[in-house]
């Protein structure tokens, strides 16, 4: 509502969603914006879905929102689920090559969903599909999938590169800052201008 942008980060416990959300929040803060964020992490360590929300704007009241302008999904199934959070004309940035299969699918009680681009198109949502695992590996560690994906998402968020640098430095522990900066840059570079559109 009114001038506030909502970004939701979704994935599975252990994927580093909370760190990615912290970087985003620090970045918005570095831009001088009001920021509110919230997360549901009760059972995160036990393989449940995780949702973290960051909202920024001139004056943000509520830390939660049901709908997001941008959804950043660290996993394909969660990307499908994340579609339900997006406003029309919203953007889904998804690590489409990452699949973490839930028990019910392993037991063949349910089916892992298929094509995400078709599902996104059906909703009139823009999809930015990223091979975040490959980017993270290139950066030097698979654990940086979260930050590589955030780098890709940075192309649709209204922040200056300098603010992202400050956000990364504020949220990422010094020991692993360098590899995460690399992953971020690779993610940012991986999204070509045509994909983002005007």
């Amino acid at each position: 509502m009114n001038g506030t942008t909502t970004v939701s980060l979704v994935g599975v416990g252990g994927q580093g969603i909370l760190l990615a959300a912290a970087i985003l929040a620090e970045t918005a803060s570095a831009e001088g914006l009001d920021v509110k964020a919230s997360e549901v992490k009760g059972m995160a360590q036990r393989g449940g879905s995780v949702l973290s929300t960051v909202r920024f704007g001139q004056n943000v009241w509520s830390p939660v929102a049901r709908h997001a302008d941008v959804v950043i999904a660290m996993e394909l199934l969660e990307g499908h689920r994340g579609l339900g959070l997006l406003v029309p004309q919203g953007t889904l940035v998804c690590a489409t090559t990452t699949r973490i299969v839930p028990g019910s699918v392993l037991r063949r009680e349910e089916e892992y969903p298929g094509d995400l681009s078709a599902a996104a198109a059906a909703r009139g949502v823009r999809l930015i599909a990223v091979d975040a695992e490959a980017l993270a590996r290139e950066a030097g560690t698979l654990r940086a999938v979260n930050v590589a994906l955030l780098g890709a998402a940075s192309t649709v968020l209204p922040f200056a590169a300098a603010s992202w640098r400050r956000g990364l430095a504020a949220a990422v522990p010094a020991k692993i800052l360098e590899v995460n900066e690399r992953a971020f840059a690779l993610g940012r570079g991986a999204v070509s201008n045509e994909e983002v559109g005007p």
Partner: protein
Amino acid sequence: MERTLFFSGNEAIAHGAVRAGAVFACGYPGTPSTEILETAARLEGIHAQWCVNEKVALETAVGASLAGRRAIVTMKHVGLNVAADPFMTLSLTGVNGGLVIVSADDPGMHSSQNEQDNRAYAKFAKVPMLEPSDSQEAYDFVAEAFALSEEFDTPVLLRSTTRLSHGRGQVIPRVSVVLEPRDYARDISKYVMVPQYARLRNRLVLERFQKLRARAEESSLNVLEAGTADVGIIAAGVAYTYAREAFPKAWFLKLGMSHPLPSRKVARLFQQVARVAVVEELDPFIEEQVRALGLPVVGKEALPADGELDQDIVFRALEPFLSRRPPRRRRPVFPPAPRLADTPQPAAGLPVRPPVLCPGCTHRSVFTALRRHKLAPMGDIGCYTLGALPPLLALDSCLCMGASIGMMAGFNKALGRKAAAAVIGDSTFFHSGVTPLIDAYYNEADGLVVVLDNRTTAMTGHQGHPGTGLRPDRSQGPTVDIKKLCEGIGVRCHTVDANDFGVLDAAIKAEVDAPGLGVVVALAPCVLMVREKAGEILVDDERCNLCGLCLDLGCPALAPAEGTVSVTDVCTGCGLCIEVCRRGALSYAGASGAGAEGAR
């Protein structure tokens, strides 16, 4: 200017406590309260400790307060039930150094067994209740709470909710509060609550409550905010932020202190606007009090009395009422909301992702061994509660922390035989399992108690407890030996390596068959703390007939494949699947022949 900080509500409370001069913090972990104490443990100038349970935590904090220090105690909402006994009487004794009790409520039950609204406790005990709505207020209100506590000689409740505790926002730090030192002075009629003294103190509590009412009227915590529309909203806590966002033009009575209610301020809001609504999560706590003043208000007939609110729910529920043409003054109130019409629909038909026991978790081994016997397993609260879900279905009950042993004892007593077992985690055992074990022994109940000793409080994020001796700053303190403790009570106890299924299974079988009461401590550090893999597991596709015995373990590392099972890369090599396979189709790599002993 100091750097603006970006804090969760919990971090803000911890920093706010230090800034307010608190030197003692304690609590018992429980979502969404846990990070308050974890943060305090990292800060200078404050001592932080986990206590065995909330009751003990509160009692410990009272001791610190009595000694003249400011003390803060933290717990989740249900923890206050555990601490209710000391809490209710503490209202009578009052405090020496300020004492703030943080109750972190969980509307929507993200990770709780109920969603009780702990504002009721403020009313019950006649103590003030502060409700911050964002991180800055969480930081600021702690100092307000301590000041109120000392001025009015009362414990003060500070209520957070999940969205405040785990939400984040900017915080501008403030200068530290400077305190006059307080000494302890013996005062038997204040602190010894025998009936004759308690009657006197109770009078003082009633007087104190009238003074608190007057304070609520003047307090800057309760603010009347002017709007441009002809409607008013009364709200507290995070619900205020939802209402502010949904109705930016309304008048607001924002209650930073929601108990006692400032009735004159409420009346003043009614003089300003034609209609008033109360926006609050869970119970109609404020609403009922406003109605009792004879003032017509809209609340729970429009808004849900369960779960969380958000700006959309608030807008949808109240828009028809608040934008109706006002009877007295005629002007349009709200422009139609833009986005609500084309709300996205949730993505349907996708597989759910419930939390599961981790691959390699030895809780699964205990359930597998217990399932071989006819005992009804009474459960408790911890990671192992997940064992009650399909496909394991390994627990018959889960009521509250520490309930398993008492329920087992009652069950067995009622039937006159060993018909139930109890399954309880190590942290929960110390929390409230020792007392019922003593009771079961004294009352000669039969039973088998399995203590799942994974050397940590795993569920809430691996905190220490008396069994591990770990303190919140990860330093090592003295430890309590569960086996010796049980034997000290007089209860038979065996400790077994839960990683060795054969030994575990035999120990459980022996106790099932033995008369009387016995304890088996299934010992194995939480698999999340043990990073190396115990071995590689191979599947012999020829022998596997996909019977499903191993899949019934609900292990995330096992999946059916074409005519066989496959082991995925999350496998820790615990080997439990090898134990349950009847066809010898699973084995450790490098072991000679199927079913051979693997390297552990």
